[in-house]
């Protein structure tokens, strides 16, 4: 009930900010759309990773991941809604673009019909993949048909390919093309690191809170330890990719690349960049470096929360400077956050009411529960 009220308050705030400052409203909308998509897509990646590798440890956590992955539905819808904001967000949708002959070569990719088609294709592929993987898992619980399990395993490689392509397209379309003259090949990998991190964090938070409610009793230190280990590894991976991108552009100092970093390293965003390094790398790294901390539910929960906040800050850092917005967190940001967080929580809570907490139809569930480090 409280969540519903908060969602309505957030929606009213968003509507207000749309009237007053549409650019800022659409920037916030885009950031939160990517937040929902990240958490959902990262969780679905974890699910398909399990099918693909035949992992046992994550089976007791798979239903939780499938439920969190249902965030792809509101995320995809929000992304389709964000298409309305194209004329406000993207320089390439302005009349008179491109002024520069070097950018004229990008018109084949950056135009409204093709952009819309790509966004729609991504949304359809995500929702379809979620239906196959999560719906198939629920179906398996009912029928206990091992052929269905095999079908999920055979679908996973296709999803991995779809995942890689759609994450890259999303990074290039919704982040990179905010500054159409800029380009970075590794931005897709950069976004992937954030996507998997937020998926892992969302699954960890959901698992710990379900455990607190007395559900998911089979999930022990050993299972949480692996989630924490993945979280730790991908915190380092994100930092590696983020620094590699920065260092190459800093070293080459090409005018068509370096302006993007000048916007983010100089002035008010400079402090934000340092803060991002602190919350996205330094604190999670040292919080998870010891063996005991990776599987400790309390530690894992607050680090997961911090990583989600860091991913939000990271998305703001990617989107806001390109639109000339200052690093500020004021009521338009708060309203958008309130709306999306409460809708996301409501959505996941609704999903947790359906089916069993464990994938009881999985033939290897016993092995997964017995998993030891």
């Amino acid at each position, binding site marked *: 009930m409280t969540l519903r009220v908060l969602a309505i308050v957030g929606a009213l705030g968003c509507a207000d900010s749309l009237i007053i400052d549409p650019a800022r409203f659409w920037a916030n909308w885009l950031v939160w759309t990517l937040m929902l998509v990240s958490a959902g897509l990262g969780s679905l990646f974890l699910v398909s990773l399990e099918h693909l590798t035949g992992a046992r440890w994550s089976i007791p956590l798979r239903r939780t991941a499938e439920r969190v992955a249902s965030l792809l539905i509101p995320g995809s819808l929000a992304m389709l809604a964000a298409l309305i904001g194209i004329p406000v967000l993207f320089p390439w949708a302005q009349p008179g673009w491109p002024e520069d002959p070097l950018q004229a070569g990008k018109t084949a990719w950056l135009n409204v019909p093709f952009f819309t088609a790509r966004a729609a294709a991504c949304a359809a592929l995500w929702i379809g993949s979620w239906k196959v993987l999560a719906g198939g898992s629920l179906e398996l619980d009912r029928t206990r048909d091992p052929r269905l399990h095999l079908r999920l395993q055979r679908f996973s490689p296709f999803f991995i390919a779809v995942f890689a392509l759609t994450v890259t397209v999303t990074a290039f379309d919704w982040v990179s093309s905010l500054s159409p003259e800029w380009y970075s090949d590794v931005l897709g990998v950069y976004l992937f690191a954030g996507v998997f991190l937020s998926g892992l964090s969302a699954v960890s938070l959901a698992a710990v809170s379900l455990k607190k409610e007395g559900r998911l009793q089979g999930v022990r230190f050993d299972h949480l330890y692996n989630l924490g280990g993945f979280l730790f590894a991908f915190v380092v991976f994100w930092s590696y990719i983020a*620094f590699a991108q*920065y*260092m190459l552009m*800093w*070293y080459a*100092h090409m005018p068509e690349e370096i302006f993007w970093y000048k916007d983010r390293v100089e002035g008010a965003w400079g402090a934000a960049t340092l803060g991002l390094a602190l919350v996205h790398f330094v604190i999670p790294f040292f919080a998870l*470096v*010891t*063996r005991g901390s990776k599987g400790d539910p309390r530690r894992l929960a607050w680090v997961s929360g911090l990583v989600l906040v860091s991913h939000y800050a990271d998305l703001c850092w990617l989107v806001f400077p390109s639109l000339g917005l200052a690093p500020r967190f004021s009521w338009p940001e708060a309203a958008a956050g309130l709306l999306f967080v409460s809708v996301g929580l409501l959505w996941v809570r609704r999903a947790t009411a359906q089916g069993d907490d464990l994938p009881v139809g999985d033939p290897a569930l016993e092995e997964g529960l017995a998993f*030891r*480090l």
Partner: protein
Amino acid sequence: MGERVFAVLGVFAGPDALLDAASKLEGRGVGKLEAYTPYPVHGLGEALALRRSPLAGMVMVMGTLGTAAAFLFQWWMNAYDYPIVVGGKPLASWQAFVPIMFEVTVLFSAFTAWLGAVFLLCRLPGLWHPMLSSSSMPKLTRDRFALSIESQGRDFDAEATREALRDAGALETEVVRFPPAPKPASLTLLLGLAGAGALACVVAGLATYWTIKVFPTLPPMSRMLQQPRLGAQRSSSVFAGSAGFAPVAEGTVARGRLPYPFKTPEEAAVLGNPLPRTKAVLAEGKRRFDTVCRVCHGPLADGKGTLTKAYGASPADLRTRRYQAFPDGSVYHAIMSGKNAMPSFAKALTEDERWSIIHYLRALQRAADAKDSDLP
């Protein structure tokens, strides 16, 4: 009984029986528990209540040390010991140091983890251990699991311990004793191995050295000679007109070779001395004056140089009022273009050297006409 008892060994059929027995015996004060298994058994560490290994802390300390060492080393090399500007970046650019810092952190951590685990914590190479004399050892590397209770003093009761192990489910038990005096051959063996290794290194080094020395024209040593490069005075297909070098763009000014457009001393009088009048500039002026000007104008610029006598020439006495009133720019013009019999010294002196000589000349003029107020 003969030799001292090392431990009592109980052999179990499988990992579950072993875990069960370990948790039964742990904490009962029967002695130090140790397990011998053909493969790692999950949960054994908890059942034996092993202490946390100090390895993680060691790796953390050494990894941090690696980060700090790499940063300091690079900073010292790039910003202090051998400062070279690369790519127009500041000398101490932390961004460029990060990859090496990362690598050295990994290197120090990995070496600490490996060397620390193998040599410090596992105490390898241990060529001898009392358990190796147990008759159960072959089985323990195949399909049996054993728990040993090591003797920790005189009041160790081997029979009671055997009984405890049998109660915990051991299939068979065995009292393991220290074997008679271990053979002291290990030191000789180690020295022999080290000697052979050192010999192999010396042989390989000498062989490499002589191969390169004797056959410098064989590949791969000759590859350095076969580089694609353009010889002097050769034509190329890269630039227009088959020129070997790119033609110099119009208006190019070489470093330290500013064009000199003035034709007369009066025109050049607009130039001012760009150098500050410091001790270092005056010392440099004296050094260059003594090298280039002194031979004709004399050490005091009074026109009495060594060459004057030899050739009967009469260079100007630069201390006179006339030359004291000469503007700096006109003196510069004289150095650049020559004056009367004096040739141009533009090629012998750089721009800064010419101006420092003018500073020194002013000092000489002042010294020739010194006032009381000039005394310190």
